[in-house]
């Protein structure tokens, strides 16, 4: 956010708007962000109200019409037990759009707290915690998930906790480097010269100033979280049947591709891809708005 420092007198007027309004203003002018957020909002609407406008009940089987190819009646065809793929894709956004954002939120909260602490105290605290976090980052999510499922059983909560905690160190690293730059500024020294507690200095003085990098990192992480949820569901560690979840559907249908029943997998895969792309485009826009 060093753009504020530019000496061009032309900047004078934009400065008068609040920083938040300024970011919103440039977000709304960013085509990348608008396209991304439109895709995301589309899926959010599907997740919230999907069952009201889906043509069929996504869970209702219809064995007679099983594995019907796309037609006027079933736009995306039907799966092995005759469920309407179109309705399943629409409603299938619900679980992933609950689990991924909650996991990201958990990762952000935990990562911010860890990053603030390590960056502010530095020294021994930093050395010990950072090494532990690095070790944690070295373990693949899938292995953590496997262990967690053995220990906690499969549930959405497990998925949230597993992904949240695996992403927390990454966010912590971003926050830490922002804090390291911030704590050298004189307002931190001024807080110390008021005998403020470390808690106050970290959360009231420093935190508001590092919101931009945290927001950017969070939106980027959300894209990865969606991908991770879909992967775990595909492998059977994530969302469980009978949910019409996309990853889960692909997992239960991908054996059929060989038989030419491509529609049972393709649309779910496209849905995952579009959501990840949408989130990434939005993240790109947020990044641009904060760094202009």
């Amino acid at each position, binding site marked *: 956010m060093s753009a504020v420092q530019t000496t061009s007198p032309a900047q004078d007027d934009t400065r008068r708007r609040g920083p938040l309004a300024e970011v919103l203003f440039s977000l709304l002018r960013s085509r990348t962000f608008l396209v991304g957020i439109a895709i995301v909002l589309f899926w959010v609407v599907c997740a919230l109200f999907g069952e009201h406008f889906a043509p069929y009940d996504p869970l209702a089987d219809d064995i007679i019409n099983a594995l019907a190819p796309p037609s006027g009646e079933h736009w995306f065809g039907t799966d092995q037990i005759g469920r309407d793929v179109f309705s399943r894709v629409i409603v299938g956004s619900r679980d992933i759009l609950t689990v991924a954002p909650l996991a990201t939120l958990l990762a952000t909260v935990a990562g911010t707290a860890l990053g603030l602490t390590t960056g502010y105290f530095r020294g021994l605290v930093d050395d010990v915690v950072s090494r532990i976090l690095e070790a944690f980052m070295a373990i693949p999510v899938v292995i953590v998930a496997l262990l967690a499922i053995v220990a906690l059983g499969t549930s959405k909560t497990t998925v949230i906790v597993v992904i949240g905690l695996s992403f927390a160190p990454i966010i912590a690293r971003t926050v830490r480097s922002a804090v390291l730059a911030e704590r050298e500024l004189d307002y931190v020294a001024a807080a110390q*010269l008021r005998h403020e507690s470390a808690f106050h200095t970290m959360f009231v003085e420093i935190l508001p100033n590092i919101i931009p990098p945290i927001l950017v990192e969070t939106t980027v992480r959300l894209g990865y979280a969606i991908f991770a949820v879909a992967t775990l569901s595909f492998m059977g560690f994530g969302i469980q049947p009978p949910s019409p979840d996309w990853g889960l559907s692909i997992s239960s249908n991908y054996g059929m591709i060989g038989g030419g029943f491509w529609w049972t997998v393709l649309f779910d895969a496209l849905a995952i891809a579009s959501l990840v792309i949408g989130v990434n485009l939005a993240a790109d826009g947020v990044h641009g708005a904060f760094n202009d």
Partner: protein
Amino acid sequence: MTEPVKARGTKAESAGTRNALELRDLSVAYRVAGRNRAVLRNLSLTIGQGEAYGLVGESGCGKSTAALAVVRYLPRNGSIAGGAIALDGQDVMKLDAEALRRARATSVSMVYQDPGKALNPSIRIGRQLTEIFELAGIAGQAATERATAMLNRVRISDPPSVMQRYPHQLSGGMQQRVAIAMALANDPSMLILDEPTTGLDATVEAEVLDLIAQLRQELSASILFISHNLAVVSNMCDRVGVLYAGMLVEEGPTEVVFNDPRHPYTVALLRCLPRGGQRKDQGRLDTIPGFLPGIGATIRGCAFADRCALADERCRTELPPLYDLSDERGTRLSRCFHHDKAQALPRATPADVALPPKPVTAPVLRVAGLNKTYASHGHPLRAVKDVSLDLRPGETLGLVGESGSGKTTFARLLLGLVPPDEGGTIELEGKTLAPKLENRGDDQVKAMQIVFQNPDSALNRSHSIRHILGRALKRLAGLSGKAREARLEDLVRAVRLTDRHLAVKPRQLSGGLKQRVAIARAFAGDPRIVVCDEPTSALDVSVQAAILNLLADLQAKEDVSYIFISHDLGVVRYLSDKIAVLYLGRIMELGPSEAVFSGPHHPYTEALLSAVPKLDQSGTARIRLDGEIPSAVNPPSGCVFHTRCPRKIGPICEQQEPQLAEAQPGHSIRCHIPYAELARLQKAALAELA
């Protein structure tokens, strides 16, 4: 000297007396939020061949915009709304892209304020220099030879070694010399210097200015010199133009304009500077009330009318023409209806101060044997060495010295932000302070506060002014509720802010207002000592004057002591009762302000004083300090100053470190030369000048 290559399509009007630069009715606007906002308004000026023209004015006046417009290098939202620019007789507005590129490459050069940013950090100096010659078609060995010659020309010793280095391996002064060498490489006919010495130490500034002055003798280039520092312009330029709100308000020969100004703005600017050894107890500095009109503001009448005590109805409604006031001293112009009585401009701030004589009291601060050693790659770096001094209530101690002399480290040691080495003591009102801030009592912490140099860094940009000051009152004065509100109002009024400013965030305030907030914060808990670390160095002169007055007023009212750090000796002199001159972490001279300034002084102090550009005198021979301040990791043996000392007497200086000896009551000097001898030498040097 070869004639610079002229681009095609040159319109040679009156080739004999072609001006180097001619701006006619130049108007420039920046497009902001969908509206064009005027930055330069009908600016006309002419720079003759070989002439140095100074452009002065506060920040936001359009100085840099004028420079950029000359080469049509405005930011993307800037556009030239009207007028003509002729560079060496050639109409810049009519050049196509290729011709413009060639004009920029061959006939105009610019040197910017920050040499660190003007040089590419990842390319060696030699490569950056030869690149310019390669563009001009000289390659290989010939280019290297030309580059070496260029570095020689800017008085860089050992060019081959400098060419092998990266920019970060050079000091600020060296970097600026390289930037100047690059600017001169293509032998331009026009050299634009945009604040070329701002941000450099006084000694380095003096070197760079000397270099530019010498180069003027050798080169034919005309110079457009942009600076907010009136003294620098007065020493460097033949003619000066004063810019206000994008308009030329006064122009004339430098000496005439600065000694006999005919526009109220020039008069007011000159009065803002502490001059001729003015001190806080001899009167306040004058200030300029109000603010510069915002960019793009609609100006009817005189732009300065709102801030001018001479303004009448006519000034507010009718734009004054540029009156031609030429006389035998030269051609000069003033854009004021009342140019004849401009110097009768009433003061905006009354000068008088009533100072009761201060009773001599016990020191509020006593520092003894303070040291700070950092570890630098395993070697000890002595940032502060054996500093002892004391400070009485209501007194100001000025700390001066080049950057790297340990001024800021010393201040941070006092505040407890950095713990000192074991052994030294800091006593506040008779009680020893713990070395670390955490271990000091709340009362001790609130008694010593600081005003930082850069308010953008010192004020939390996420918090409103009310939050910032309210929190300070809560923590430092222990106030809450109604009492806090009441005190907040007092505090805001004491630093001359208004309630209106409380709701906003720091970024919505100007630099001067931000610094007032920082001062208010420091004073929230009735401190005994306030450290002021270059509090005005980022501010315009008119704002600086207001801040200095404020500090002086607060001191008189609250009996607070200041530790005032500044590289501007005029400012230090104005505010200080006592001066400590630091060099490589050691006190070289300590004494009452008057004694230190009037001398006899330590040879280092002497050099520092002579390096300061002064408005009142021009062309004084400077005492040049050779080389840079040595590294504190490996300080010179004996007297640490001997490597640069112009008065070095012999081997004793290299072998034995002199003591800080009391030469006169209260005035100590760390030098092998006896006091009487220093007095004789320095008197002789003065006589030689006169």
